[in-house]
């Protein structure tokens, strides 16, 4: 067999399954999204409907807010924790493992854990607040508070995860730079801002892409904690697609929504490829 034929043979299994579960459904979604409910006909109604569907618009806004706030917060905290846990100190291994632990746990288990914290009467937060004589809100029941509450939980999980990437980044920085700052009496914050932070930018770019896709992909906690409520205040895109697909049995409309999400994901992929390209060129 020629090298050429051999290469194609090697690629067949991967491309078969990638085609079956991403290309075929992509084409299927395009076709299905232009059909009426129940199938058949040709219509662009599903796309027109998107602009008027308040739940969809709410889910999109929620997801946008969720991404725009959790991604920078997670990365900022991750960077801060990494700098703290990078220094040589007693218990370093224990603390690193502890901060990373939430990252390895299932999102659904984390959601269950945080429900204890958010319960209105008996939850941990309100017990503490109440004992201090402060107001005790219904964290998951109040439309204004539910999304921020979920964001806090997401940041807790994600920051632990990205801390590991930042630790790797910090280990890649020449230790002599820090020693030089030390000898010159440069303050720690100034050293971080002028030296570490710029050198961590590639890690930040990579992490931001992963975190962004996580913020669209990880909706497991909505199933456990809120089912999108109250009043759709915590509906996210993938959850809404799930509801339309399997609760309302309307795959044609769900397909139109999937394609909107895919368009966003592909845009992110293009950014990612450009970053990878740059990394390869400059290596």
């Amino acid at each position: 067999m020629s090298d050429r034929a051999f290469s194609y043979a090697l690629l067949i299994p991967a491309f078969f399954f990638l085609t079956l579960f991403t290309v075929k459904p992509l084409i299927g979604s395009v076709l299905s999204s232009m059909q009426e409910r129940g199938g058949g006909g040709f219509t662009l109604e599903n796309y027109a409907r998107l602009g008027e569907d308040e739940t969809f618009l709410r889910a999109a806004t929620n997801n946008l807010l969720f991404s725009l706030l959790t991604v920078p917060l997670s990365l900022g905290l991750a960077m801060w924790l990494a700098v703290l846990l990078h220094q040589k100190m007693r218990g370093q291994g224990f603390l690193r493992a502890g901060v990373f632990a939430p990252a390895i746990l299932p999102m659904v288990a984390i959601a269950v854990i945080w429900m204890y914290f958010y319960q209105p009467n008996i939850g941990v937060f309100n017990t503490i607040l109440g004992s201090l004589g402060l107001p005790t809100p219904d964290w998951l029941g109040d439309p204004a508070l539910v999304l921020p509450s979920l964001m806090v939980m997401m940041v807790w999980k994600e920051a632990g995860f990205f801390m590991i990437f930042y630790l790797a980044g910090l280990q890649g920085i020449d230790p002599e730079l820090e020693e030089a700052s030390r000898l010159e009496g440069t303050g720690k914050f100034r050293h971080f801002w002028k030296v570490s932070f710029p050198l961590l930018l590639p890690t930040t770019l990579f992490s931001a892409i992963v975190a962004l896709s996580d913020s669209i992909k990880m909706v497991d906690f909505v199933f456990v904690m809120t089912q999108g409520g109250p009043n759709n205040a915590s509906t996210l895109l993938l959850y809404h697609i799930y509801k339309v697909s399997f609760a309302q049995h309307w795959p044609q409309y769900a397909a139109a929504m999937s394609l909107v999400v895919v368009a966003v994901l592909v845009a992110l992929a293009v950014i990612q490829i450009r970053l990878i390209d740059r990394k390869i060129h400059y290596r």
Partner: protein
Amino acid sequence: MTGTATLVPPAKPSAAPARARKPRGERILTAADRTEMVVAWIAGLLWISPLVYVFYRAFLVEDGAGGHFGLENITSAWERAPFGQYYLNTTLLVTGITLAQLVIGALAAYAFARFTFPGKNVLFIFVLVQLMIFPEVFMSENYRTIAGMGLLDTLAGIGLPYIASAFCIFYLRQAFMGVPGELVEAAKIEGASRLEILWKVFVPAAKPSLIAYALVSVSTQWNNFLWPLIVASSDTTRPITVGLVRFLAPETGMDFPKMAAGTVIVIAPLLAAFLIGQRGFINSFLRSGIK
């Protein structure tokens, strides 16, 4: 590793004696250093506290007299749902998916890293675009595919959409490209076939990357929820994540000890495995997390 001891510059012999007296690997801790360590401890402990609290609630048995610590919550939760079956399902799924991903990924990565063929760049860009697209986004269409294959409520139906992973192909290709050409030439001279070269040269040389990828894949698949929720409809196929949610759902009101016990049953083995293999796990992340 951060070797602080190696930081002493070897130049200027006149400056050396004063510094050499400092114990090896130690630094003089300034007040700022100490403050930072205290902050690190506070932040770390605060971070861990939710997990500690769940374990506390799971093992605290309410007995009217303020409670005592025991296994009663855990055993009663274990009896109320087939956690053993859920575990078995998850283990089978995770093993199957990870092995299939590695085999399929290694074959494709080998083609991309080692050979030139027409359309290579286009095909590789096709893989790169898929880095961001996950099967759940097409849940209706994929459900239809799996249903059409008669695989609803089977482990195969849950696993199949994941076995070709763009990330795996991309990641292993990077690892394979680092394999020295001399090794390949040597194997060629000895008469090894192309598949033998993959198996005897590339796979051993890229072993750390294969292990790192396997760890990432295992933890991702272990935690997967949405797609198994859609496909699985009986306890014989439900993985542990879906099982946990089912276990908690039908009850009315909040039974904290029961919820905590269920959660601990689900997360304890993961945490134990993580703590045992922690150094290796974190180090493999640190070494090959992003390359």
